[in-house]
Every structure is written in structure tokens, then in C-alpha cells.
């Protein structure tokens, strides 16, 4: 059984929803990122999304755009990210790691090599923002061969007619994008998320994580109660940015600030 499946089973057994945290690899630098990453499970992250920085993050709002830019100053590539995941795995064998980003860095690396090296490093799944089911056929065989979950996005605009095409190839969990917009801008709305969950559950038995527009522990509490996990990204990345700006290059201090915020989010979800 994969780490992702196991983790969602455990959450179910505990009768609670999970917290998925997003941080961009290499933000603000690789050493600080590693400290942030390694401490996330203790702070209360149930699943970790590691952002693969990209020069042109078309689906992201300002917070994640800037975090990508900070990371890319250090020329962070997939090899560096795999090394960081492998280092994390020496400290934690159970918390699932999902790589999240855009298709071009993966395409450039080569689909098969990507899946192979991601799994070897200890990653469990991948979310590729600009690879919808219509285009995913070219990558799915490699992911299946090496055992990396493809986590598909569903959106408020995804019609019922479209959902089977998305969900037939989904594995691990399903990501519901709670707002039509870029990351970190609008706020997720309780009523529409509730309706969306009913719609999605009719098409899938996979756990559903909801993200985009969840910024505070209170919002995380409200939304996570409606689904299997709440995803927080931009708000965490903002803490990385603020703390770096205030403290300079102090990995311990920045990581501690991030972990404190994640603890608050986790308290909301629990």
C-alpha cells in the first residue's frame, strides 16, 4: 500500500481530516527549505506538497510566483529536489510527499527518468498543473511503471460530463481547486465546496483534498470538515517570505516561524 493511501486510511481511522502543506523547493534557499521540510510532520503536516519552481507559473498568484523566483535564483532543478526528498526520507518514512508544478521541467527531464528518480528519492505522487487528462496519456505509463501517483485537479468549472475522464486515471487522492482563479487570491466558499464534494463523491472513492483560497487556521478548520484534507500553500509561502525578509539568511529562525504557523493550521484541522 502506498504512503498516500496508508496516510488517508490512518486519518479516517482517527476520524479526522488532514492538513496538506505546500512549500516551494529551494525557497528561500536549499538549506532553509530542507529544515522547513524536515520539520513539517512534527508541526502537523499530514501530507507534504513540494513545489517544483517554474519560470512561468501561470496558475499561481503573487505569493507562489515570488517563491518560485526566490528558488530559481539558486538554479534549483529536479535533481536538487530529489536530493532534498531523499534527505527528508532519512528522517521520516511515513509522511507522503507529492511534487507539484508545471509540465515543462518534467518533460525536459524525461517522463520515465522523472518517475524513476522521484520514486527512488521517496516521493509518492505528482500534481502537474498544466497537464490535464487530455494530455496526460503520454506520462501516465511511466508513472504507473515506477509507482508514482498522478493526482489530478478538479475545478469548479469541471462539468459532471468531464469528471469521469479526469477521475478514471486519478490515483492517491483527488485535488479539488476550490476557487476559479490563481492560488492565494480569492477565499474558498463553504457552500460551494460542500456542493462540489457531493458532486465529486458520486464519481470517486478516492480521498479528496481541497486547496486554493485557504489561508487561516479558521478557514482550514471549516473547509477540512467538508473533505478529507485541506491544502494550504500561499499562506505558508508568505510566512517564508516575511520571515526571510525580517531575519535574513537564518534557516533555523525561518523554519521555526513556518512550523509555528503550520502548528496553528494543524490545530484548526484537528
Amino acid at each position, binding site marked *: 500500500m502506498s504512503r498516500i493511501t496508508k496516510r488517508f486510511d490512518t486519518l479516517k481511522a482517527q476520524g479526522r481530516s488532514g492538513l496538506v502543506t505546500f512549500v516551494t523547493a529551494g525557497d528561500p534557499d536549499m538549506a532553509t527549505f530542507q529544515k522547513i521540510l524536515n520539520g513539517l510532520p512534527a508541526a502537523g503536516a499530514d501530507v507534504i506538497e513540494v513545489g517544483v519552481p517554474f519560470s512561468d507559473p*501561470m496558475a499561481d498568484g503573487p505569493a507562489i510566483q515570488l517563491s518560485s523566483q526566490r528558488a530559481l535564483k539558486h538554479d534549483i532543478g529536479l535533481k536538487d529536489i530529489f536530493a532534498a526528498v531523499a534527505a527528508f526520507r532519512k528522517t521520516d518514512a511515513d509522511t507522503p510527499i507529492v511534487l507539484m508544478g508545471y509540465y515543462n521541467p518534467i*518533460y525536459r527531464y524525461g517522463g520515465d527518468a522523472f518517475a524513476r528518480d522521484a520514486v527512488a528519492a521517496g516521493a509518492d505522487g505528482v500534481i502537474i498543473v498544466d497537464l490535464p487528462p487530455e494530455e496526460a496519456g503520454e506520462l501516465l505509463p511511466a508513472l504507473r511503471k515506477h509507482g508514482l501517483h498522478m493526482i489530478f485537479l478538479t475545478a469548479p468549472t469541471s462539468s459532471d460530463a468531464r469528471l469521469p475522464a479526469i477521475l478514471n486515471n486519478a490515483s492517491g487522492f483527488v485535488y479539488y481547486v476550490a476557487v*476559479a482563479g490563481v492560488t492565494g487570491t480569492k477565499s474558498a466558499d463553504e457552500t460551494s465546496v460542500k456542493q462540489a464534494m457531493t458532486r465529486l463523491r458520486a464519481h470517486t472513492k478516492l480521498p479528496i483534498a481541497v486547496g486554493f483560497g485557504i489561508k487561516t487556521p479558521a478557514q482550514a478548520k471549516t473547509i477540512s470538515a467538508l473533505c478529507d484534507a485541506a491544502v494550504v500553500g500561499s499562506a505558508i509561502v508568505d510566512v517564508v517570505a516575511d520571515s526571510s525578509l525580517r531575519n535574513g539568511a537564518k534557516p533555523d529562525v525561518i523554519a521555526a516561524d513556518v512550523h509555528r504557523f503550520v502548528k496553528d493550521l494543524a490545530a484548526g484541522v484537528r
Partner: protein
Amino acid sequence: MAFVQPNTFRAGADENGHFGIFGGRYVAETLMPLILEVEKAYNAAKADPKFKADITSFNAHYAGRPSALYFAERLTQHLGGAKIYFKREELNHTGSHKINNCLGQILLALRMGKKRIIAETGAGQHGVATATVCARFGLQCVVYMGTKDIERQKPNVFRMKLLGAEVHPVEKGTGTLKDAMNEALRDWVANVDTTYYCIGTAAGPHPYPTMVRDFQSVIGDEVREQLHAAEGRLPDTVIACIGGGSNAIGLFHPFLDDASVKIIGVEAAGRGISTGAHAASLTGGEPGVLHGNRTYLLQDANGQIKDAHSISAGLDYPGIGPEHAWLNDVKRVEYVSATDDEAMNAFQVCSKLEGIIPALESAHAVAHVLKIAPKLPKDHLLVVCMSGRGDKDVFAVADALGAKL
């Protein structure tokens, strides 16, 4: 791998929007239903004689089509070789070929009931054309434009504002066309219900590359007729500049299956390919995925998109339309490049000899004509697309030449 010659070069894209491995629909799920809706609406419009009649009528009475095919006699004499014709797209309303596409797409948006139009622009030609057609139909218009481009294309920025458009400066990245396109996509995803995204070039997710090509093919269709009337035959060579490649695909597409017609696309070599400061995605790029399609891209070993450079804002883009990527790989079209300096020289030669100030974009095509025409026989018919007029560029050119205005 052996290459099997297709029966036709004009059949693409396939039903999933692919030209060989290029093209496709690489967009976020939130946008996917919209892209499918645009495709459905476009297919319905294509089958509706009323839509075609509307476009033909606006092309004739609003844009001023057909644009002239002009024998450039003095340039021909000066170069002493091929007989050179200019396809005068710069004479269209708004001063470039961009109006062809905007009329088509905005008539489609009206059919779809959209009231708000967004667009990206580099040189401002597409932004001006979009703002113009929006003004004509009373639609709200928002144009995204990089801050660097706003600086070097001030006249067009003011024109857009006069036409009632909001111009949103984009500071992110390099402040050029690619960043403007990112920002337009972000706007679209946040305003899916009300908004139609009018992409300015033959790139982006399917059906845009095909749709924009169809609207621009009026260029090549007219050339075929006009040259037949003037010379009684097909051209021997057709040449156009390429950023995303919309004027080029519009000129090329009607001739793709005429084996005797040599087709040449001219990319922007900036300060020279070897310097790395260029915008020639086919010459200096590799296949990748950006802005909804797979195509040749300027990128580094990690798949990060590199900054393009061209003196011409309209060519300053690290990618190229996917149909061009395919035509390059199947070797139907020859893709070459011209540097900033070569384009600046062509800009001046064309102005002095023909009394036509070309857009800096079009000057890249003229630059290649200067290179090859002298070596060609006098009965060689060469058609170059004068995609836009250069009024917008005179300040930038004056700067580059060190002239004080």
C-alpha cells in the same frame, strides 16, 4: 526514424489539437472546459454561413481588405535579382495583420455571449487591434502588456487608451510578451464566466493556433489570387517574419501543398544566435510546453524558460506557434533568422527606396529578402509579408540610431 511525407501539409491540427508532437491543450483544469467551449463555438461558427459573411463584410468595410499586393520596383532594381512583391498588411485598419484575427475572434466572442475581452500584446499591434474591435462592438477590453514593451511602444499604449481599453502593465519576469501572456491567462482563470481571451498569435492551447491561422489565411488566399492576376502564376518564394508566427502562418498555409513554392520564415536573431540574446526558438530552442502548447522554446537544462531578446517587441517571445514547429520538423518550411542590426538596416532601406516604413517585425522579413534576392533570377517571384507599419517604431529606431527627436 524514416519520415513519411504526408499527403497534405494543410490537414492539421488533429482532433486533439496536435500538429505531430506539437500543439495540444496544456492548461490547468479550471481553463480546460473554457478551451473546449471555445472550440465547440468555433466549430459551430465555421459551419455557419452568416459567420463567414460577417467576417467578409467587416474585412471589406472596416479593415479595408483586400490589402494590396504591391510590386516593389525600386527595391527589386536595387537588389538586381528576384521580382519582389509586398503583401501590404500594414495598410489594414490599425496598421497590421492583427485586425484579421481580432475581427474573427471577437465576432466569435459575441456569438458566445462574452462581454469582456482580454488580450496580451508585445509591440501593441494586437492590443490596438483588439481595443479597436472592442470599441466597435462596445465590449470591455483589458490588455496585458509588459512594462519593458510599454516603454518602447508608447504610441500604441496611448492608442489603446484612446480606444477605451484598460492597459495593465506587467512587471513580472522580463516585462515582455511572455509575461503578459501569463498574466492574461491568470485573468482568464479568475473570470471564466464573463471573459473571452483573444490570443494574438497562432499559439496557445488548441483551438487557438488553428483558429488564428484560419483567420489569418486571408493573407495567403489573397496573395494567390492577386499574384495570379498580376503574373498569371504562383509565387516562387514567400517570406514572413515570425514571433508567434501569425502573419507567417496566414501567408504560408494556403501555399503549403504547392510544392513549387519555397516558404521561408524569419525569426529574430537579436544580437546574434551565438550571444544567447535572441528570440529564435526554432534555431536556438528545444521542444517544451508553455502557454498551453508544446512547441520549440528557449529554455535551460532544467526546463526553465529563458528570456528572449529582440529589438522588435512583437518578436520578443521565447516560443513559436506549434504549426511552425511541426512545419520545421517535416521540413516543409525553411526557418532562418535576422539580427537586430540586419532588421534596422532593412527598416531604413525599405523606407528610403519604397517610401514604406515597415514595422521592425516586418523588417526582419525584409532583411532576409535583402540577403537572398540579389542571388535569384529576375523572373523569380518573391512575396514578402509587410505585416505592419513602422510608425510605432520610429522613436525606438531613433534611439537605437542615436538620433535626437
